């Protein structure tokens, strides 16, 4: 069962970023006219941005702590749709951030944020987060939208995981990781589900190893949900 792919689709984050990058170019193509106050203001703004980008980077903790508003203190997320990133391998985090920045990896918001960091800054964030301690996610009483773990679904999920040989890459039931594989055990079930749905979404082209995409293509939405419950339930 081959999934239809739309190769030409430009994704939300990429589109916005592309437009932002194209804007100065378009201005440069405009016919030469006497510089207006607006042009001068724009040029000053661009100069300020270029200077700020080139300015020395902040330390890892300072940079990484700005992530906590969405990804939780030291990368342990409190929100069911936001991934915990504590203890993820630095190479994985760096490559994901680079793909967000280039637009290769689709996103709603991360593309806009990733563009704010130089390679050195991203590297410092990744190093900080990789050293942070993983903690299995825990729902606060105020978190009313979080999906509760379902043992029956998790049991069925285990069967699909075995059938698809997910454990070849996602070793020890998603508990340990190679450099380029994210941890899934103890992650938010909602987040895992959103990401797997994204992999089936015809409007999205997500950088994935071929065998990962093939496995996802074979599974139904229901089976993917069961797999999400399985990995999220592993502690």
């Amino acid at each position, binding site marked *: 069962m081959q999934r239809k792919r739309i190769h030409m689709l430009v994704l*939300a*984050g990429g*589109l*916005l970023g592309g437009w*932002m990058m194209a804007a100065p170019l378009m201005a440069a193509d405009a016919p030469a006219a006497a510089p207006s106050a607006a042009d001068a203001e724009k040029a000053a703004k661009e100069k*300020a*941005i270029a*200077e*700020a*980008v080139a*300015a*020395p*980077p*902040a*330390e890892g*903790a*300072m*940079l990484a*702590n*700005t*992530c*906590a*508003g*969405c*990804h*939780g*203190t030291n990368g*342990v*997320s*409190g*929100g*069911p*749709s*936001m991934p915990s990133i504590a203890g993820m391998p630095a190479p994985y985090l760096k490559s994901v951030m680079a793909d967000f920045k280039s637009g290769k990896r689709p996103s*709603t*918001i991360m593309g*806009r*944020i*990733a*563009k*704010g*960091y130089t390679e050195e*800054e991203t590297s410092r964030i990744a190093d900080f987060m990789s050293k942070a301690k993983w903690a299995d996610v825990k729902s*606060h009483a*105020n*978190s*009313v*939208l*979080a999906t509760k773990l379902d043992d029956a679904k998790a049991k069925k999920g285990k069967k699909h995981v075995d059938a698809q040989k997910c454990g070849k890459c996602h070793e020890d039931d998603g508990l340990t990781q190679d450099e380029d594989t994210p941890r899934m055990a103890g992650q938010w079930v*909602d987040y895992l589900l*959103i990401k797997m749905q994204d992999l089936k*979404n015809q*409007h999205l082209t997500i950088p994935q190893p071929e065998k990962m995409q093939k496995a996802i293509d074979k599974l139904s939405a229901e089976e993917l949900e069961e797999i999400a419950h399985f990995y999220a339930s592993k502690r």
Partner: protein
Amino acid sequence: MMNFTRRGFVKLTGGVAALGLISAPGISLGADKKRVVVIGGGYGGSIAAKYIRMADPNIQVTLIEQNKDYYSGPLSNWVIAGFRKLDVQKWGYEGLKKHGVEVIIDKVTGIDPAAKNVTTAGGKKVEYDRLIVSPGIGFKALEGYDAEAMTKMPHAWIAGEQTSLLTKQLAEMKDGDPFILVAPADPYRCPPGPYERASLVAHYLKKNKPKSKVIILDPKDKFSKMGLFTGGWKSLYGYDTPNSLIEWVPGASGGKVTRVDAKTMTVYTDMGEYKSSCINVIPANKAGEIAEKAGLTDEKGFCPVNFETFESTKHKDVHVIGDASMATGLPKSGYAANSEAKVCAAAVVALLNGKPVGIPSYVNTCYSMISPEYGISVAGVYKLNAGKIVEVAGGVSAGDAKDFVRKQEALYNESWYQSIMADTFG
């Protein structure tokens, strides 16, 4: 920026006097222990207190907050529109105590920057080496908007009791009455907030009071995420059609409200008057009461600060963060307050240890809802260069995003809230 200087204006403040006094056990100070006092336990102050303790457990941190419970402003518009309970907006200070923060529930009545102490309504005098002031907002005077008017025409711009009042008034509003939303002039807390509120009230009206509509009376001619909001309003609420559930009256078309009368439930603009049984008045903002009282504000009503440390340019060893500060370049959002607090906390730790202050980094991430399944966002990454906060990247959600993207952003909004609250109070 507007200035309300008419006679008869009543000075308003955002706070309510604390009722009780609950004090955590005091920690006795060693001779070399440094003490930081934080005023205000919201999105800014709580983070500053926690992150100082995380970075340097040798610093004693005392947080003084006037209310036992904290109600989050972000997501409180969901409550008003009837699809969220106020209970899940409520947070306490137990988590901060676990980080070793001493929490005092009391109202600060004075700051003495020369003697370096603060005094409270409960009669306490607390000394500090460095003070962090994070009092949120108060309101500038608006003719007719006194303490009583505030209960009849709630602002609901400081969450809690005010949120309940507006929720109740909307629920009881007669089908056919307009929901009048008086939007504030710049700069104010949560720039997209009034328009998110208008959106979610329209969503409520569509289902529950189809003969009613929202009228936004605005002193401004443009607003935050404007293209995304009006785009969403067109697809969901018939915006720009005769049957629109939202009518936006910009300043240029007479949207500027000059006075209100709570007895007759009327608001007056330059060009006319509007009446309803349900009126939401959000006056122009200024820094919270204590900042003004302590001489930390400028003529615009907010607190000028150094962007590297958030130290006040008015008083030494006093820092101001969050909506009360004038962090030019950053919006007055909860996420910006969180980010400012972390920059301030790192600077305070460095200064108290006689070390150089590190290079700051700031982020803002802010979601708004146009309906319960339609989320939009703005994000920004900022660096300090030549004394100015510069947005190096960011922007708003794509204007032509597909429905599944809007749905995901709606989910991310609530998860944003859970994570930032865990960061703040956990």
